[in-house]
């Protein structure tokens, strides 16, 4: 089967709350796709609809081209980790995986394999109720890998892991994608996906805000900005202002802002300026022509977190306002 998740026009209301408002995206094989948005953006609901746990009011969700509920032995098609706590605490880790295996016609040997793969070997015969959140996440990953599925869908898998576990999880996600699987990983923290996800689906208020490659997203957020480190701030600002182009800077909390005509320069109160709209060479030339000393000029590269905040800032704001008028205004 095709290793894809196709979500098309999902809508769902819980009472008066709109959980999904036309959610559409496709997860492709061979890469980790980040599924990012603030809490309450509809990530978990989307995943529950994909797994057939919740019914959407409208729209379709297909796994490998088929609705989840029509899959025979679904764990061999999709491995999912929705809620690491969703197990009976009195049962041992191994027995939890054992009943899951039996539900799919999978043998006992595979159970022991995945237990070793996630590093739970020594704890396999302990009750899962006594596990830390990190160990439960590992058990959840073991359950997701049980059927060796071409599609994986993990809700906040890094949650509760210790630093070593985070590194392990990132490596695992990358290697699963490298094997050609489609891997969808949700997170409310974009920084968790830095270096792991090649593609991101950013959601807010039940719909997709951006569906783009990580490289493209960062490029767009970086703009054509140049960071200038100089001890002579005033002279630098004056020199750049003379170029008669829009110069804006926003490093941290701007403590002083100079406006001259249509030129705006803001600094962070230290010796750093960020200039938009000018190529690096032009900045260097202007500074040199005016004999302004500087210690560093570099193209600014936005972090994934910055790019995400640019995208969702507005969405979160309207969510906080929480009014129908606000939602209308956003449309």
């Amino acid at each position: 089967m095709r290793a894809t998740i196709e979500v098309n026009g999902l809508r769902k209301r819980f009472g008066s709350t709109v959980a999904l408002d036309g959610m559409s995206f496709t997860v492709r094989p061979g890469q980790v796709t980040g599924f990012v948005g603030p809490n309450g953006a509809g990530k978990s609901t989307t995943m529950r609809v994909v797994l057939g746990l919740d019914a959407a009011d409208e729209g379709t969700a297909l796994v490998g081209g088929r609705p989840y509920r029509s899959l025979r032995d679904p764990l061999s098609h999709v491995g999912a980790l929705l809620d690491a706590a969703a197990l009976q605490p009195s049962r041992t880790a191994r027995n939890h995986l054992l009943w899951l295996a039996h539900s799919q016609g999978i043998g006992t040997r595979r159970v022991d394999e995945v237990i070793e793969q996630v590093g739970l070997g020594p704890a396999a015969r302990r009750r899962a109720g006594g596990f830390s959140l990190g160990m439960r996440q590992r058990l959840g990953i073991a359950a997701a890998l049980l059927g060796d599925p071409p599609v994986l869908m993990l809700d906040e898998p890094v949650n509760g892991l210790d630093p070593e576990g985070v590194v392990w999880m990132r490596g695992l996600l990358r290697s699963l994608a490298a094997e050609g699987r489609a891997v969808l990983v949700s997170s409310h923290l974009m920084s968790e996906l830095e270096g792991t996800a090649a593609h991101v689906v950013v959601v807010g208020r039940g719909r997709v805000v951006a569906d783009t490659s990580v490289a493209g997203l960062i490029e767009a957020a970086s703009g054509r900005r140049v960071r200038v480190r100089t001890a002579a701030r005033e002279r630098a600002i004056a020199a750049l202002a003379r170029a008669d182009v829009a110069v804006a800077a926003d490093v941290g909390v701007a403590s002083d802002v100079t406006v001259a005509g249509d030129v705006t320069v803001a600094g962070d109160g230290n010796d750093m300026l960020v200039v938009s709209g000018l190529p690096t060479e032009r900045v260097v030339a202007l500074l040199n022509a005016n004999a302004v000393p500087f210690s560093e000029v570099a193209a600014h590269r936005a972090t994934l977190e910055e790019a995400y905040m640019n995208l969702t800032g507005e969405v979160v704001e309207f969510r906080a306002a929480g009014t129908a008028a606000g939602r209308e205004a956003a449309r």
Partner: protein
Amino acid sequence: MRRELHAEWTKLRTEPGTGPLLLAIVAVTVAVSAAACATVTCAPARCDHDAVRLGLAGVQAGQAAVAILAVLAICGEYGTGMIRTTLTAMPRRGAVLTAKAAVVTGLTLVAGTAAVLGSVLAGRLVLPGRGFTAAPLSLADGPTLRAVAGSVLYLALIALLSLGVGTAVRDSAAAAGVVLGLLYLSSILPYMVGDPDWQRLLWRLSPMNAGLAVQATTHLSSLPLSPWAGLGVLSAWAGAALLCGGLLLRRRDA
């Protein structure tokens, strides 16, 4: 369906609470049956007691353990959220409930048989000392055999009723309350109304009174329902509860 059965069997088998509950079904039933037999004295001249019904009285207590076993089999999953793992692994919800019903009923039949036979044995040991005829509760006797087999079926139907209610209600405590309330309160309700017609109707509708008619071996003509018809009433309750639970399970978001 085979995989659903296998999975549900593994689940129940590896749940530490299952063993103690099965033991409780047997222990409570036998203990209460023995106690009931020990508290009754039969005057040799005119012994009017139904020795079989007395010897199987523990079923009325043991059914509570059966109800808890069945309620926990489904509500335990809702309490922990494991139901979502279950329905992700087995999206055919009707098959999941059917498999659960089969597994829980199977275990109840085994424990129920042990409990009822243990009660018969206890009755045979205790009753002769209380003025009853020398060899009461003989399984060779037709009505006695019907009462014994019927009691095992009664416990199995209680399991199905409880599973259906548990699936519909989802919360363990609430479901156990509904089942035990339905059983015990409806069994005393007929005796709280004065009108004899209403009394008979309420008696016939009560799953416990009607169902336990299968234990009667004396004065059958004075019962509001025949033994098997009584068990039929309980079957209808169990079927309705399972149907209701099954429909809700299919309709609702997990």
